[in-house]
């Protein structure tokens, strides 16, 4: 880019041969400095020039309003001629704002109470996980990806594992697949419960925060019992799952199947007839099916707009096509329809969990391919080869045939894809995560422009972005 900010020009920093002279009046200099800092941070004046190069946010400025192509891209309207430029107000929302669900920053151009243009600014949570993935073996990889979308870690692991397995060409035994379906569907419920909690809180139903997290706790406790961790489980791995389900898991599921629907009916009692909630969600944050397709918006957001598309039905994975469930659809594509769709998805997912509980097959929970799975503990005592296999797998990992693949699962937010390029070694040459929240944040301007400031929080909450998922 030609317009990169000038760093430091050589002249001002020219090395001098003279010995540095001790400052004569340090007191006055300190006072000057203090005044400068005061001017900048307290008095709210313009930044001094010496500071500007460090805080230059040139790229994050509002874009040229006269560019029609750009407006078509990001949505928004130019305020009419009757509005003078100085009547437009620029408002920064976030990154530290509770209703942005993380560290999302929105650059808003307001004309009174109306939003003219929006620019989402992301990257505050970027940790270079795609680069990290290139330094980790396929065995360690799921530890990395599980930290991206921290509300649905099991879906991240599943997408990664499916991609690696498609390159390896291994088949997962039925029980392993059923455990995967059980855990990911429970994860969908727990993620939607967090959405319900935050959507309610953002619209003033503060008790929803407590209700949602209370019911999610049943699921997290089950996860802790099965995987050892409440979040970032690293349980679904290439080749199967890490361990079999613990004894007595059926009773825990029955508790979940009993308690969570009770909670959901409580929420519905709270929301459905509530005139405030209805007024603040109906017709707010609308996105059309055409916009969804062009912007790559997927999952419950697209289904609320009436797009009948669910990856579990279209490209079934892990044997999810054996279970019966419906795909709820909306018609208007507004916040209210997204609420209805997600509520119904919770019920459908619990229905799948119930079917898995009834039909859980017996057998192995991971593939028997010794190139991928470590040998059972017993074999290590008996066989030298098993010991070597175990050692090799956990030190250098397994090799994956060269090739590239894209595998996607239906995460609670939408299409979660994993693109992996392998060069035939133990570590991926390139791993790219296609995360749904990235598209949804991108589509926020389309949903928000020309609506009111008060609708911002409703729209963000209904998009359900997870910023770890956006920035990666």
């Amino acid at each position, binding site marked *: 880019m030609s317009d990169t900010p000038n760093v430091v020009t050589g002249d001002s920093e020219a090395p001098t041969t003279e010995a540095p002279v001790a400052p004569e009046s340090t007191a006055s200099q300190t006072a000057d400095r203090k005044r400068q800092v005061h001017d900048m941070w307290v008095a709210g004046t313009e930044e001094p020039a010496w500071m500007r190069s460090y805080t230059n946010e040139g790229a994050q400025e509002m874009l040229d309003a006269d560019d029609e*192509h750009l407006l078509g891209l*990001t949505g928004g309207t130019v305020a009419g001629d009757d509005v003078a430029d100085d009547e437009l107000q620029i408002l920064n929302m976030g990154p530290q704002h509770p209703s942005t669900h993380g560290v999302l920053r929105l650059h808003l151009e307001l004309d009174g109470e109306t939003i003219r243009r929006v620019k989402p600014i992301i990257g505050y949570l970027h940790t270079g996980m795609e680069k990290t993935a290139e330094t980790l073996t396929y065995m360690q990889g799921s530890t990395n990806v599980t930290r991206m979308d921290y509300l649905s870690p099991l879906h991240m692991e599943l997408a990664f594992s499916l991609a690696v397995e498609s390159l390896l060409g291994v088949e997962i035994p039925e029980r392993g697949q059923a455990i995967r379906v059980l855990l990911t569907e429970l994860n969908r419920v727990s993620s939607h419960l967090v959405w319900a909690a935050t959507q309610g809180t953002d619209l003033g139903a503060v008790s929803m925060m407590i209700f949602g997290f209370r019911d999610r706790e049943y699921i997290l406790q089950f996860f802790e019992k099965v995987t050892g961790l409440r979040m970032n489980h690293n349980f679904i791995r290439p080749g199967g799952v890490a361990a079999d389900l613990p004894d007595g898991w059926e009773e825990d599921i029955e508790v979940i199947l009993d308690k969570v629907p009770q909670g959901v009916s409580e929420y519905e009692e709270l929301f459905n007839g509530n005139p405030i909630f209805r007024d603040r969600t109906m017709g707010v944050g609308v996105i059309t099916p055409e916009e969804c397709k062009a912007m790559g918006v997927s999952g419950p957001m697209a289904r609320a707009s009436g797009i009948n598309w669910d990856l579990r039905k279209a490209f079934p994975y892990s044997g999810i096509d054996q279970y019966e469930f419906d795909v709820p659809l909306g018609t208007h594509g507004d916040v209210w329809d997204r609420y209805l769709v997600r509520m119904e998805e919770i019920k459908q997912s619990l229905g799948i969990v119930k079917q898995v509980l009834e039909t859980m097959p017996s057998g192995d929970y991971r593939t028997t391919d010794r190139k991928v799975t470590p040998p059972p503990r017993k074999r290590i005592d008996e066989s030298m080869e098993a010991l070597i296999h175990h050692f090799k797998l956990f030190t250098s990992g397994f090799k994956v045939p060269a090739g590239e693949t894209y595998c996607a699962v239906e995460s609670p937010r939408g299409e979660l894809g994993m693109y992996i390029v392998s060069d035939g070694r133990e570590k991926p040459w390139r791993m790219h995560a296609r995360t749904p929240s990235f598209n949804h944040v991108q589509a926020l301007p389309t949903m928000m422009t020309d609506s009111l400031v008060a609708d911002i929080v409703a729209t963000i909450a209904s998009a359900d972005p997870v910023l770890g998922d956006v920035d990666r």
Partner: protein
Amino acid sequence: MSDSPKFDDVFAPLRKAFPDVKFEQVLDSKQDVAHVPTEDYLPFVAAARTAGFDVFVDLCGVDYLRRAPRFEVVLNLLSHEHRRRLRIRLGVSGTEPVVPSITPVFPGANFYEREAFDLFGIIFEGHPDLTRVVLPDDWEGHPLRKDYSVGSVPVRFKESPKAQ
């Protein structure tokens, strides 16, 4: 996938219109890939959109470092109608990584192209706002390039001798 339309039925019109584009099916014919030359890229994406691949899914860069076109831009499209995915791969030169932007066809590519520019330094010509998206504006270099080191932080343990 069994009830998806046949490969030939879906792609025949595209193959006819773009003879230079090489189609292949990878991983037991489960995934469809199109290798597109740079000059065909934008018209091909537009044609794919009219042919039913109207859902923008993903766009990312790949750095193959020692291979002849060093970079690659990989675009994923989806067709609800045909129930198929199409992956478009486009080689990008390492010395002059410039490709046309597809934002006029798919506005959803906006952030993805910014990300590919940010992390690989691939320039998307015609993109209205090609700035860094996940990294700070004053960041130097493009971290996902293979010649960009992962980096490390030196750690000195309590008992170890002092570093020189």
